[in-house]
């Protein structure tokens, strides 16, 4: 674990401050995780699935509880802080204290450190500067926001490097429909009066849909007014498999991996 954090420290002073539990401490009495081995990570993964997955998702990427893969924890980033959160809970949230033995808690922390996707960013092979140019040249901003205002048809990528691994980012470029967040499913259908309906599914209940049309119009549609409809779970984004060279894909991945929250700006989910 220590090696991992030292490597991370090289990424940048600011980044290192909040990723590195040693750096994050402002006092000398630092508690070190005594169970950092690969076996401990595996044991922690089992505990996670048993104790935590119900709220934080099977892969820790979040469900009703927040994602724990960003490397940035809202209530404290040090091992010591994580130990306290796991055993004492977070008042005012559904996160309760878990009654586990100390070893199990440390193993969970080791697993969480291993699940941090953003720490892989430093291993990106491509050139992020080239990637940024490719992002503009290929019109990505028509549908995505990345730091500065862009399109809204696709996910906001401003902190995507904190939430997706290098492999996930590459897959998203080459096979965009491989994994589509339900927040980005769309509605396609026809009203009983023959009007075509299509838009991003912003909300749904038993009786109605709320959609964002590509024109930017927000509207609500009763299901009973639709002659037919389907929820499209594929991505409208084109694959860049044949459009970009492998080196360009790597540059774009490196650029996306560099898009991360700054210290102090918690990822809201």
């Amino acid at each position, binding site marked *: 674990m220590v090696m991992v954090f030292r490597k991370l420290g090289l990424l940048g002073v600011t980044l290192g401050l909040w990723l590195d539990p040693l750096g994050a401490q402002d006092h000398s009495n630092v508690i070190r995780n005594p169970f950092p081995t690969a076996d401990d990570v595996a044991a922690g993964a089992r505990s996670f699935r048993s104790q935590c997955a119900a709220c934080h998702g099977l892969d820790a990427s979040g469900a009703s509880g927040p994602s724990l893969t960003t490397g940035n924890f809202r209530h404290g980033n040090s091992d010591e802080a994580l130990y306290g959160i796991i055993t004492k809970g977070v008042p005012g949230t559904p996160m309760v204290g878990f009654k586990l033995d100390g070893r199990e808690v440390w193993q969970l922390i080791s697993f969480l450190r291993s699940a941090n996707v953003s720490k892989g960013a430093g291993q990106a092979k491509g050139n992020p500067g080239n990637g940024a140019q490719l992002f503009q040249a290929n019109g990505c901003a028509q549908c995505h926001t990345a730091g500065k205002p862009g399109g809204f048809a696709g996910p906001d990528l401003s902190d995507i490097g904190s939430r997706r691994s290098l492999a996930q980012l590459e897959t998203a470029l080459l096979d965009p429909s491989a994994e589509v967040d339900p927040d980005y499913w769309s509605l396609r259908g026809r009203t009983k009066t023959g009007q075509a309906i299509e838009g991003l599914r912003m909300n749904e*209940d038993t*009786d109605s849909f709320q959609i964002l049309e590509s024109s930017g119009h927000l509207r609500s549609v009763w299901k009973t007014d639709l002659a037919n409809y389907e929820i499209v779970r594929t991505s409208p984004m084109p694959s860049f498999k044949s459009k970009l060279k492998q080196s360009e894909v790597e540059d774009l991945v490196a650029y996306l991996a560099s898009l991360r929250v700054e210290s102090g700006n918690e990822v809201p989910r």
Partner: protein
Amino acid sequence: MKNSDNRLLARAAPNRPHVLAMTCRAATVRERLLSVISEQVHKLSIAMAICAAGFSLSAQGLPITSDRLLHADREPGNWLMYSNTYNSWRYSRLAQVDTSNVGRLKLKWLFQMRTQEKVETTPLVVDGIMYVTRPDNDIIALDAETGRTLWTYEYRNPRRLYPCCGRVNRGVAILGNRLFMNTLDMHVVAVDARSGREVWRTKMFDYTAAGGYAATGAPLVVKDKVIVGMAGAEHGVRGFLDAYDAATGKLAWRFNTIPKQGDPNYSWSGDSGERGGASTWNTGSYDPELNTLYWGTGNPWPDTNGDVRLGDDLYSCSVIALDPDTGKLKWHYQFTPHDVHDWDSTQVPVLVDAQFRGRPRKLLVWPNRNGFFYVLDRQSGEFLTAKAFVRQTWAKGFDDRGRPELIPGNEPTTEGNIDVWPGVDGGANWMAHSYSPLTGWLYTFAREERRVYSKTEYHPPTTEETVAGFRARPVFAPEESFGKVIALEPGTGEIKWEHRVLTPPWSGVMATAGNLVFGGTLEGNVFALDARSGKQLWRFLGNGPVFAGPISFLSNGKQYVSLAVGDVLMTFSLNAE
């Protein structure tokens, strides 16, 4: 109340709006109301007296005698107990709102609770006055015509409490001039229904014992006793059901839902029953003719680790049939022996007299959290039949005595077993079912979903660090998780129709003599379905999650429907044509 009587009355009151609209008030009540309440109610009661014109089916106003509770079905304008009547049909005999005009149902008033908690309450209504609980444990008397507050009783709970699943309350019971409520810190209080002042307060149990006790259900008044359940089976408590003298608040009897060690029905390894759960956190039912109280019991503890409590773990996940005078057990039936899935059997028992295999029988019908619909003989406790009403993976059938034959591979594992149906919140849960004597069907809001079942290590219970549950949300594809209102034939469990909703629900349902079934979704839809076909006839977007059950009552001679949506109690009535 005899169920046969009830059915006759129901048949005698067909879909003619006027008959029941005339269920109005006697002059004596008018005077009482006048003396106590505001001018608004004054006007209302005059209108009621005008429309009454000799059509009074029963005594009106306070006090609520035990005889009136026995015949609560004869006061369709009121809602006198949690499930409306002792047989727990939750059926409104009001028929002003029916399949032909429900489209004109509009919002009449709102009562804003301003709470972050789930609102699970069922209000009571007595002659134009509504009594509703608000989390944690407040009681509010409202003018049922306007939603304006008449008085508020605030119970002060300690800051730290130990409910497993929210600081919730499901309502009050009434007898005489008194309302009865159990509290999250394990007290029972009697409050004067006229003034909102506390009359007595009795401590049930130390709420900090074991991993923490709580009481969340609505009490049930039977004769002169207030029957009160408790919660805490996630915290290693030992379950019981209590009866308190309504006049004095003194404990009349306590039935321990886990027998003493040495009792032939003690079926727990070692002393594990001492902290084995088997709580009683929802409301039961009562058959006056058989003088029998029926109550469901919760899961054994630890919820998903059965290794430390080998055996059937009686009387967890059971129905217990008790003598309400003494608390003595008449019979029991265990739906889920040695449960490891948190499948509480705290559903409301529904008492129906119906044909079973060609012969009329006194039935106890029960859509259970474990996914099966059960039919029992409520006199003998005999198991008659069971049929799955949602997808289930754990039982291949039942033997003659109603013991399930298990399918292997459904046990929780340390890695998390994701192949078990139904999930931890069950095919049914605590949400109210409803039985309509018009269609002869039972309506229930079922949940279709699976969850992660993890076996956790055993730790002794303590409130110092109340052990986290494994409360789970669906992490599976949306099409695997949904809700459905279903109409069941009580003798067979055959599903007559289903109405699907997007999300597994937490709302109760209510059938009415207008041949409607009301309910709400977790997404905030309020609906009325045709009780015969399941077709949706009316919808309203309340835009908050529904965790309560609907009721119906008369105000000013007009039928109203109330349901808590989010933290707002919404009341609907028909618009003029």
